[in-house]
């Protein structure tokens, strides 16, 4: 028996958790339901580890196995199975999804404690994990799409988890609908691949990746563009990023898990998976991907500099970091994209969870301008947040430095301009993250000067969210450190964020573990530009310098200063994300709505239906003379038909001789 055939266990365990909680969640209650959910994830993580171990024991070229379960959609030439693909890429994804997922489940046991719908939260969370794992483990595009849509639906459920809050409900819907625009691309890509190759499987003799070389440049380019459209939606790139900042309406663990570490990277994963097709596409297509990635990275970084909401900073930061990954894909540096995806998952999950801990400790305060000096009150949160801060800033030696370096090296190989955009982004990243750290953990205790917590609770439309059973909320305005279930994940993630660079150290060829490991998945697609060692060191030094410069500027401007002094650094245009969101809203809400409204009330009612009624009137008036014959009551006609039928039946029965 092949161990890898049991790969279905990885998604099946969270699914089992989902069903258990769906049926018995209410009875298990708070916190037991949370522990069930967390154990399911722990089980999935173990299963992924076992698969990983098994793959390692195989020689490189044999590290690809398909575990088939059953036929899903078989019609004629279309034969799609529910089957899981175990290869280095999918197991890498599965490992970090289950590992970080487990930690965030654990964290949620503390964070969601006291929420009325505590069990429901874990129902969704487990369902999400299941979908995400199907997405990464699927052996064909359609099953990937199933996971893709599943995570989208769970994201929708979880963003609008506090559904009585109007803004949360709107944000959830916005996320789903915006993602659907991307799904349009994904679907057409599948149709096109099927029409060209006759299969949706990745590998195997008929697989779309196996046969990628058979595609014409035109088709490969179209498929690459369409898949990229899907990625633009899911991974929140320009111009479809607008849903991700709004998605922060969801509970913070959701932001950490779905909107930072896992789901939003699905687009990048898809592009990496489709690398053999991207290679066949016209170079202009991958250039476009790289440009969009770089533009998104830069754009979102500028916006992050001017946000006041602790989670919004991280949200735009996520958009920006996803831009890095897309830039890497467009540059052909697939390993760098995955490397940065993994390290980003470590440090961004850490930062979000740290932010959640802060929000929790301050009784649902999210405005950084009303924070400050928290390092004294929340030492663990502070210490771990420091690690995350330095990691994302690209401080030399930490994980973010190494992975960002790889991305930038890849970008340099494609075009120095792309590299430049990346370096400026690196500087901005270090700047806005430092600004956040100084505002939140240093400076004056601004939460004290204003009765912030009372005020925020009054404006909070969802009282039970802010007042967990644990007795905070009333009276005690002082911040407090979070319970161990929340700090433990922080500590673990801080460790990973610090040393994550070890996965792929560019010091020696031997220490490029990730690159060697992923080689079977990318094959010749990953032959990226090998830079001279001297160039590499120079590029790395430049990126390190940019990081230090960003931190330095922020230190000068924000450390120990009052936030009011720096209003010039926060132009309104940046606060509103260059007005893009508002522009979309006015197009959809203005002309878009007007057109639909015209279709519904003028065209449909007056013109189409008007014509029908007009004909009816004409007939009625013209037929006025026939009135005596016709009673005008349809029920009489109907009865006439019924009577006729009875007669016909009777006649038939008589003829048949019954």
């Amino acid at each position: 028996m092949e161990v890898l055939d049991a790969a279905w266990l990885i998604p099946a365990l969270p699914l089992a958790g989902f069903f258990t909680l769906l049926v018995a969640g209410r009875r298990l209650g708070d916190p037991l339901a949370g522990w069930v959910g967390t154990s399911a994830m722990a089980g999935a993580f173990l299963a992924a580890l076992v698969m990983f171990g098994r793959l390692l024991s195989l020689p490189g070229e044999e590290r690809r196995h398909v575990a088939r379960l059953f036929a899903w959609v078989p019609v004629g030439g279309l034969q799609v199975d529910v089957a899981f693909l175990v290869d280095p890429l999918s197991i890498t994804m599965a490992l970090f999804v289950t590992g970080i997922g487990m930690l965030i489940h654990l964290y949620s046991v503390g964070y969601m404690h006291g929420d009325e719908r505590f069990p429901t939260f874990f129902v969704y969370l487990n369902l999400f994990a299941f979908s995400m794992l199907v997405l990464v483990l699927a052996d064909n595009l359609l099953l990937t799409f199933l996971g893709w849509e599943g995570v989208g639906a769970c994201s929708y459920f979880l963003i609008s988890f506090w559904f009585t809050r109007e803004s949360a409900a709107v944000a959830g819907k916005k996320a789903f609908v915006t993602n659907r625009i991307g799904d349009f691309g994904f679907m057409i890509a599948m149709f096109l691949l099927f029409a060209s190759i006759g299969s949706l499987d990745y590998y195997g003799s008929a697989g779309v990746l196996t046969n990628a070389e058979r595609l014409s440049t035109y088709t490969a380019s179209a498929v690459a563009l369409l898949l990229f459209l899907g990625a633009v939606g899911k991974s929140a790139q320009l111009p479809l990023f607008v849903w991700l900042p709004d998605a922060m309406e969801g509970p913070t663990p959701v932001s950490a898990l779905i909107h930072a570490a896992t789901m939003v990277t699905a687009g990048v994963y898809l592009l990496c998976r489709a690398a053999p097709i991207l290679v066949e596409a016209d170079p202009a297509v991958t250039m476009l991907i790289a440009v969009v990635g770089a533009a998104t990275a830069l754009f979102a970084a500028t916006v992050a500099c001017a946000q006041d909401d602790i989670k919004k900073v991280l949200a735009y930061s996520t958009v920006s970091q996803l831009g890095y990954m897309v830039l890497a894909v467009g540059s052909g540096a697939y390993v760098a994209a995955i490397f940065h995806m993994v390290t980003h998952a470590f440090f961004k999950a850490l930062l979000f969870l740290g932010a959640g801990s802060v929000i929790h400790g301050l009784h649902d305060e999210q405005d950084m301008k009303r924070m400050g000096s928290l390092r004294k009150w929340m030492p663990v949160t502070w210490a771990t947040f420091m690690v995350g801060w330095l990691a994302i800033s690209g401080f030399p030696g930490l994980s973010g430095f190494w992975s960002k370096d790889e991305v930038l090296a890849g970008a340099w190989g494609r075009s120095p301009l792309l590299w430049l955009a990346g370096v400026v982004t690196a500087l901005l990243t270090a700047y806005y993250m430092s600004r956040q750290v100084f505002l939140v953990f240093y400076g004056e205790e601004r939460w004290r000067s204003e009765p912030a917590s009372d005020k925020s609770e009054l404006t909070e439309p969802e009282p039970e969210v802010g007042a967990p059973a644990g007795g905070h909320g009333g009276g005690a305005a002082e911040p407090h450190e979070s319970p161990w279930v929340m700090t433990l994940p922080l500590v673990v993630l801080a460790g990973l964020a610090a040393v994550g660079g070890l996965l792929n150290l560019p010091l020696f060829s031997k220490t490029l573990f990730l690159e060697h490991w992923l080689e079977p998945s990318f094959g010749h697609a990953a032959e990226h530009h090998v830079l001279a060692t001297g160039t590499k060191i120079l590029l790395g030094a430049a990126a390190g310098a940019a990081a230090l410069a960003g931190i330095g500027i922020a230190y000068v401007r924000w450390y120990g200063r009052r936030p009011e002094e720096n209003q010039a650094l926060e132009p309104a245009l940046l606060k509103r994300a260059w007005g893009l969101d508002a522009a979309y809203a006015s197009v959809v809400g203005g002309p878009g709505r007007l057109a639909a409204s015209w279709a519904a009330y003028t065209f449909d009612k007056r013109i189409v239906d008007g014509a029908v009624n007009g004909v009816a009137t004409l007939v009625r008036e013209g037929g006025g003379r026939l009135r005596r014959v016709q009673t005008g009551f349809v029920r009489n006609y109907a009865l006439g038909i019924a009577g006729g039928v009875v007669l016909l039946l009777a006649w038939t029965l008589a003829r048949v001789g019954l």
Partner: protein
Amino acid sequence: MMAIAESGSGPAFPLLSALVVVPAAGALVVALLPRYQEGVIRVVGLVTTVAAAVLATFMAINFKAGADGFQFLTRQQWIPEFGISWKLGVDGISLWLVVLTALLFPIALAGPIVKKDVKNYTAWMLVLEAGCLGVFLALDLLVFFFFFEIVLVPMYFLIAGWGYENRVYASLKFFLYTLFGSAFLLVGMLSLVFLHQRATGELTFDLVRLAESQSLAESTARWLFLAFAVAFAVKVPLFPVHTWLPDAHTEAPTAGSVILAGVLLKLGTYGILRFGLYLFPAAAVDLAPVLLTMATIGIVYGALVAAMQKDLKRLVAYSSVAHLGFIILGTFAFTRQGLSGGVLQMVNHGISTGALFLLVGMIYERRHTRQIAELNGLQKPAPVLAAVFMVVMLSSVGLPVLNGFVGEFLILLGTFATHRWYAVVGTAGVVLAAVYLLWAYQRVFHGEPQGDNRTIPDMTWRERGVMVPLLVAIVALGVYPKPVLDRIEPSVASLVAHIEQHSDFREPGVAKGRGAGADKAPEEPHAADGGHP
């Protein structure tokens, strides 16, 4: 002449006749019962529909998978002078529609409780069931027409008698509009039969005989196809002849809407597939662009108009215009994926939209309004109702794992293989479906409930019981549609072969796929169909 591949037919037990007769007999019993015996009447109604459901299930279990011809054939001379016979049969295309009909009726009867004039209500519902089942089973043109028309009568009375405020206008419009379409159908059918007689000397209303002989001149066939298409397009309804639908759906009582959307609209899509494509394959290929265009317009237009509706029930009604557009799209793709998806989507739409109408009815019973503006925050007082609504809605949106996705995906994939740009526009409709339904959900269920919305009761156990079979079907068809598809495909494949044989259309190789053996099929078209001496 030919060996018959019909299983379980013959004189042993006329299963298909029984399927039609049981509800009709039930209606007769109800008609004979005294008006005040409401309890007994309800029981008779339910028992009858459940009996029909059991028969249909039995039929589905004994249906031979992998066979493309008609099974359980029943044939009785009716009016031999005119070549009319009582011929019933079921193949992969009609099988699941029969099952759907037989399962939806008990649900529609048990779901919403009607208090007014239970006797007539139940009787009309049973007549309606007999008619619907007859339509899907009939293999004789006149028998089909007979059932196709008879269905109008009970539906008219149900809307007019048990509907809402504007029921008189709506029922009249429904009746006259579809009757107008039927006139074309009758003329088309009679012309076909007599022209066939002139060409071959044989007077017959037998669908298979007429379809296999293909005796018409090209232009004649095209005109006759158009006549059929008009009749069925009204019934579907296709844009721009759809405006009877929102009125009828909205004003009909809940059970009426469930059946109207779940079953009656399928008479149009089924009719065009069974009669349009089968009888006039070359004309269907020639005129496909017209129908594809109307279908794609319907998909986008229906979604846009649905988004703007202020009445929740009307919104669901317009969503049908979009969804039925998908079915027509798949039908005129002429690939087995498109056609199979279309057939599957007929069933899916029946389940999902039927369920949506039941849910809207439940909301109405609680709030006595369907105005979206007057509803809000219902998820708080009624979390179960909200959860069920969510699942059904996502099925309608076409979320994978749920039934709607499989059908839509097959349709679009199959259409893309032959009519690329229509599929692209249709896929855009998938995006729009999310807009109108999620927006409606947000306005009705999300937010802090105000006023009477705060205190509505959640779903009762009876209501949950009614929804459970639908939810099971929604998930089962999404996760494991194979048994259903396996039974649809052979019939669809032989229809495609029939079209290829009689027109210059050729199904793309990728759609046929490995080992489909489709290239062989035209050599013995519909060999499995039999019953002709």
